[in-house]
């Protein structure tokens, strides 16, 4: 019998962007913010430690980072220490790993840190490192990048469903507007549909405002068994369900229909089933808007709208405050930037605050159920569902 698992502390580094410090400095900030969010918890209480970090080998010339990060935040893990690297979804998968460790009874208290220092003194190094995130030998070698892969999904959605450029741009408009209310967001500049469409082209159909930024950032979270959590907080946030599904790796081996993200649909269904809820029960969701098209397809596959209607869902305001569900209140990857390993953890931090009613100007009124989603390419998806302690 698995045990219930709760989040009891969460925080992010103060300002995402080009970080004026080292990898250790960045990890320290997430550690401090997390411990500061719940002064009852001390580093000595932590038994397990999971760090999500994608390419420190390349960006800061440091491997072997699980215990480096643990030492940096003052933790001596006695039951679990582990690094998670699953490209863009590493953060959510790190939380999922902590969940598994606690649910199984292996640990009572686990800390998760997501940290990514992407910027280097020579910016093109980062572009080159990102090549390692696709099939390096058969895709990356040709110059193919994540923006191109997601552009293919966008072209397919436009061709199949008649989705408009304005609908894609609306996702960027909404998430940049939400980021205005988030102090740590990398990009604090609102934009209009017109400005998105006229911004610098990246790869058709995307402009630069439809692509998540290269960003340094970090975030942390502490999870406990339900029994332990009650000792440390009156407002635990529970993990109610989770799902994960992948299909293939090389882009050519995914489903033929590039805008049919079956793997997300499956991961979502599994998470809903485990939580005993459906899409209509979700009040707030942090989903992986790495590119504008992503949020449109995600809103379909997670069941917030019908397949093919994601563009209209965005344009009609159904994915924001006052609509069916609020997607990406912290500003998403488009507004906050995407420090690979940190993103999923920061999504969890936002949902923790939302479900405790502590999200300030970003608060979704009365939010009870939150959903976090990370992807690592079109064909691999991870979902977590969070609920308030009274659920």
């Amino acid at each position: 019998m698995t045990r219930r698992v709760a989040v009891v502390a969460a925080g992010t580094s103060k300002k995402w962007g080009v970080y004026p410090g080292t990898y250790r400095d960045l990890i320290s900030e997430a550690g401090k913010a997390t411990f500061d969010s719940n002064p009852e918890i001390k580093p000595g209480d932590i038994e397990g430690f999971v760090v999500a970090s994608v390419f420190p080998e390349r960006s800061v010339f440091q491997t072997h980072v699980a215990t480096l990060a643990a030492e940096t935040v003052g933790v001596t893990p006695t039951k679990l220490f582990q690094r998670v690297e699953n490209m863009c979804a590493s953060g959510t998968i790190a939380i999922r790993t902590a969940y598994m460790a606690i649910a199984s009874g292996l640990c009572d208290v686990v800390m998760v840190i997501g940290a990514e220092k992407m910027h280097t003194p020579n910016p093109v190094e980062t572009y080159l490192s990102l090549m390692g995130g696709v099939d390096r030998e058969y895709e990356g070698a040709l110059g193919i990048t994540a923006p191109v892969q997601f552009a293919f999904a966008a072209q397919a959605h436009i061709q199949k469903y008649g989705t408009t450029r304005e609908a894609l741009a609306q996702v960027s408009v909404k998430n940049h507007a939400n980021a205005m209310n988030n102090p740590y967001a990398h990009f604090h500049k609102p934009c209009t549909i017109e400005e998105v469409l006229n911004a610098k082209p990246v790869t058709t159909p995307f402009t630069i405002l439809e692509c998540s930024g290269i960003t340094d950032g970090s975030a942390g979270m502490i999870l406990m068994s339900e029994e332990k959590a009650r000792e440390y907080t009156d407002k635990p946030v529970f993990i109610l369900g989770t799902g994960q599904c992948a299909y293939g790796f090389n882009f050519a081996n995914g489903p033929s229909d590039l805008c049919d993200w079956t793997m997300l649909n499956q991961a979502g269904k599994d998470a809903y089933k485990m939580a005993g809820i459906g899409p209509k029960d979700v009040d707030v969701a942090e989903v992986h808007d790495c590119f504008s098209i992503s949020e449109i397809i995600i809103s379909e596959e997670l069941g917030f709208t019908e397949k093919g209607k994601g563009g209209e869902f965005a344009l009609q305001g159904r994915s924001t405050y006052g609509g069916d569900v609020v997607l990406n209140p912290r500003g998403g990857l488009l507004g906050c930037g995407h420090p690979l390993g940190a993103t999923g953890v920061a999504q969890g931090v936002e949902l923790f605050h939302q479900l405790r009613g502590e999200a300030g100007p970003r608060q979704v009124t009365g939010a009870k159920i939150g959903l976090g989603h990370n992807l690592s390419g079109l064909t691999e998806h991870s979902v977590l569902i969070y609920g308030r302690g009274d659920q």
Partner: protein
Amino acid sequence: MAERLTWEYVYSCDPIPQQTPEFNKLHQYYENLHLGRLTTTKCRKCEKVSWPPRTVCPVCMSDELSWVDLPDEGSIVVVSVQEGGAFPGFVAPLVFAMLQFGDVKFMAKLIDVDIAQLAPGKKVRFKPEKQYDGRILPAFTLVG
């Protein structure tokens, strides 16, 4: 004091894969590209055709595989023209497309094309692209 480290070649910063027998069991793939053939592996036991090519069949685990030609011509499913954010060493605009050859899909770079002529359904033909140092990579161009 040690001299400052200066290497003329750093593989971890080289986008082009190693293509020779001492580093790559599938070197025949690249040798075939030099001969103007786009090939992949087919399992001699269960006949599974894999992409990318394999040293072990992912279906039946046989390590007896042979090289088979992919069709010379395919068609564009979706296409994107990249103008920004290209890797170092790649000159924009770059044209990429998802191609379909019968049952096989292929992520491809298109070269020597008129961008105005690109559209889903257009036919493309294999046209390998020699790299600066003699290595080779697959590419395609529009037919006609």
